[in-house]
């Protein structure tokens, strides 16, 4: 299964629910397009819910970083929630834990924007 993406509002925070595999090709492209689209529409508080993501490769990680840069350059914030152990391990290996704010709980993550 490739990636499935949907967005929803929790107050003024836009939550992006991702599921499946974020890998080079369709998955990573769809992911990039969605973050850029939301950022271009003025959404400044983005929370990426990776709870249902089973697999991310280095291209998917690259798109997360690219999305982070896009949102930050627009004066916004992109944070992460619901990471599986495997995705957490990837962030540790790549030292991206030092870049992203990561939360286990969605309500806590939403509160952190205020």
């Amino acid at each position, binding site marked *: 299964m490739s990636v499935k993406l949907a967005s929803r509002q929790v107050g003024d925070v836009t939550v992006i629910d991702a599921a499946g595999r974020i*890998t*080079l*090709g369709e998955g990573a492209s769809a992911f990039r397009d969605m973050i850029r689209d939301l950022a271009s529409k003025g959404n400044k508080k983005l929370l990426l819910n990776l709870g249902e993501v089973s*697999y991310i*490769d*280095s*291209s998917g*990680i*690259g*798109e997360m*970083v*690219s999305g*982070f*840069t896009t949102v930050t350059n627009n004066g916004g914030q992109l944070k992460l929630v619901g990471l599986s152990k*495997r995705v957490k391990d*990837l962030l540790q*290996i*790549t*030292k*991206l834990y*030092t*870049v992203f704010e990561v939360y286990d709980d969605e309500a806590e993550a939403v509160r952190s924007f205020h």
Partner: protein
Amino acid sequence: MEKTQTTLESTLESVDKAETLVVKEADKAGFDEDEQQQIGMAIRECMVNAVVHGNRYSKNKQVHLEIDRSKETLSIVIGDEGAGFDINSLPDPLAPENLLRQSGRGILLIKAFMDEFDLHPRPGGGTEVRLVKNIPKS
């Protein structure tokens, strides 16, 4: 020793195919699910390098995959027919100034997930990588 050899087209479908083939062998070798996924990811990263950066999706170039499974190790060789590659030209993806780069993390992940990683020129042209994962003793 079980040996599998195949030649693949320079497409993203081949990346999936190689990953599936190797994960199947990793399962037979007795690796657990987490290890199988890590091995699969290392293969995916190598295959992407071969298809995208080595062969540049050329219809005239192939990717050569060889899997050897013994009692002690799972060994994989992936070769492309590209222009060659200098691993020392890659910026360190863990350097603070590179953390926000979009690409360049593939080899870091491969080294993290495999016990051995070796990259060298392929006889006849291109680049060949050899990956080894030691099989856990039961």
